[in-house]
C-alpha cells in the first residue's frame, strides 16, 4: 500500500543512491568457510557437525524472519500487535508434537524407562522460575534483545548489541557463581513436574495442543480487537 507521493519520493531516492555493492562473492566465500569448518569439526566428533549445521540454520531463520522473543511479549502490550506472539505459539505447537514423537519412541522402545532418562529437559518449577522470568524479562526489554536476538543483531553488525553481549556474559558468570545459593534456597525444595506421569502421554499431548490453540485464538482475537480500538482513538 503506497500513495503516489511515496512512490515519487522512492523514485527520487533510488536515483540518488549509488548502486549497491555485489555481496555474492562474500556469500560464496562464507559458504566455503562454513563447509571447511564443518569438515574439520566432524573429524573430532560427528555430533559437533550437527550442532554447527543446526545452529547456522537457526541463525538464518531468526535473522530472515526477524523472529524476536522480546517483541513477541512486548508488542501486544505496547502496540497491540500479536503477530510475533502467534509465531512463538506456533513454534510451541510444533515442538510439542516433535517432543511427543521423541518421547513416545523412547518410552515405546523401553517401557521401564525412568522419568529422568526420557529425552527433554525436566527442571523443577517454583517461585524461582517466576523470579528468574521477571529478571530476564526486564533485562531483555531494556537491552532490546534476548539472547538469540542479541547474537543475531551482533552478527548483522549492530554494534549496540556488543554492550548487551558484555552484560550478558557478566550476568551468566554471576548466575553460575551464585547458582548454589539459589539451589539451596529455592530450587532444591521445588519438584520437577512431568504431566504425562499423571495423565499419560497422549492425553497430555491433546491437552497441551488444545491449550496452545486457545492461546493462539486469543492472540488472534486481541490483534483484531486492538485494531478497532486504535481506529477510534
Amino acid at each position, binding site marked *: *500500500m*503506497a*500513495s503516489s*507521493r*511515496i*512512490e515519487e*519520493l*522512492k523514485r527520487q*531516492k*533510488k536515483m540518488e*543512491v549509488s548502486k*549497491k*555493492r555485489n*555481496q555474492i562473492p562474500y556469500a560464496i566465500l562464507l559458504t566455503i568457510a562454513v563447509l571447511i569448518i564443518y569438515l574439520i569439526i566432524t573429524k573430532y566428533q560427528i555430533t559437533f557437525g550437527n550442532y554447527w549445521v543446526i545452529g547456522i540454520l537457526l541463525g538464518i531463520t531468526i535473522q530472515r524472519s*526477524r523472529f*524476536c522473543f*522480546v*517483541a513477541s511479549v*512486548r*508488542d501486544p502490550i*505496547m*502496540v497491540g*500487535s500479536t*503477530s510475533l506472539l502467534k509465531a512463538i505459539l506456533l513454534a510451541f505447537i510444533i515442538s510439542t508434537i516433535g517432543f511427543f514423537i521423541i518421547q513416545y519412541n523412547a518410552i515405546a522402545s523401553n517401557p521401564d524407562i525412568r522419568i529422568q532418562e526420557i529425552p527433554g529437559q525436566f527442571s523443577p518449577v517454583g517461585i524461582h522460575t517466576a523470579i528468574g522470568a521477571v529478571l530476564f524479562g526486564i533485562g531483555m526489554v531494556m*537491552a*532490546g*534483545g534476548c539472547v538469540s536476538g542479541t547474537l543475531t543483531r551482533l552478527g*548483522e*553488525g*549492530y554494534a*549496540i548489541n556488543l554492550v548487551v553481549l558484555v552484560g550478558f556474559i557478566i550476568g551468566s558468570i554471576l548466575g553460575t557463581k551464585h547458582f548454589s545459593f539459589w539451589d539451596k534456597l529455592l530450587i532444591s525444595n521445588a519438584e520437577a513436574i512431568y504431566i504425562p506421569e499423571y495423565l499419560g502421554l497422549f492425553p497430555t499431548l491433546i491437552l497441551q495442543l488444545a491449550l496452545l490453540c486457545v492461546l493462539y485464538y486469543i492472540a488472534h482475537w486481541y490483534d483484531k480487537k486492538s*485494531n478497532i480500538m*486504535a*481506529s477510534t482513538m
Partner: protein
Amino acid sequence: MAEYKLDCLHEVCPIPLLKALKSLEKMEIGDILIMHTDHNCSIANVVEWTKKQGHYIDYIEIAEGEWEIYIEKAR
C-alpha cells in the same frame, strides 16, 4: 502537505516505532514522515503497525543495512 524527517539511526527496537507513533500524532492528514533507520526490525514492526492503522507506507534500502521508511498519514 509537509514533510517530516525522523532520525532513528542506532535506535534499538522499539524506539523507532515509538518515535514514529509520536510524530504521526502531531502530523496532519496528507503529511509525509521520512524515517531513517538502521534497525531491520523497524522494517517489520513499523510497516506492520502503520498498515494496521491504515496509513500509506513504503520503504527503500539506501545503503547496506540502512533504510528509509516513508509514511503518509491517511486519516
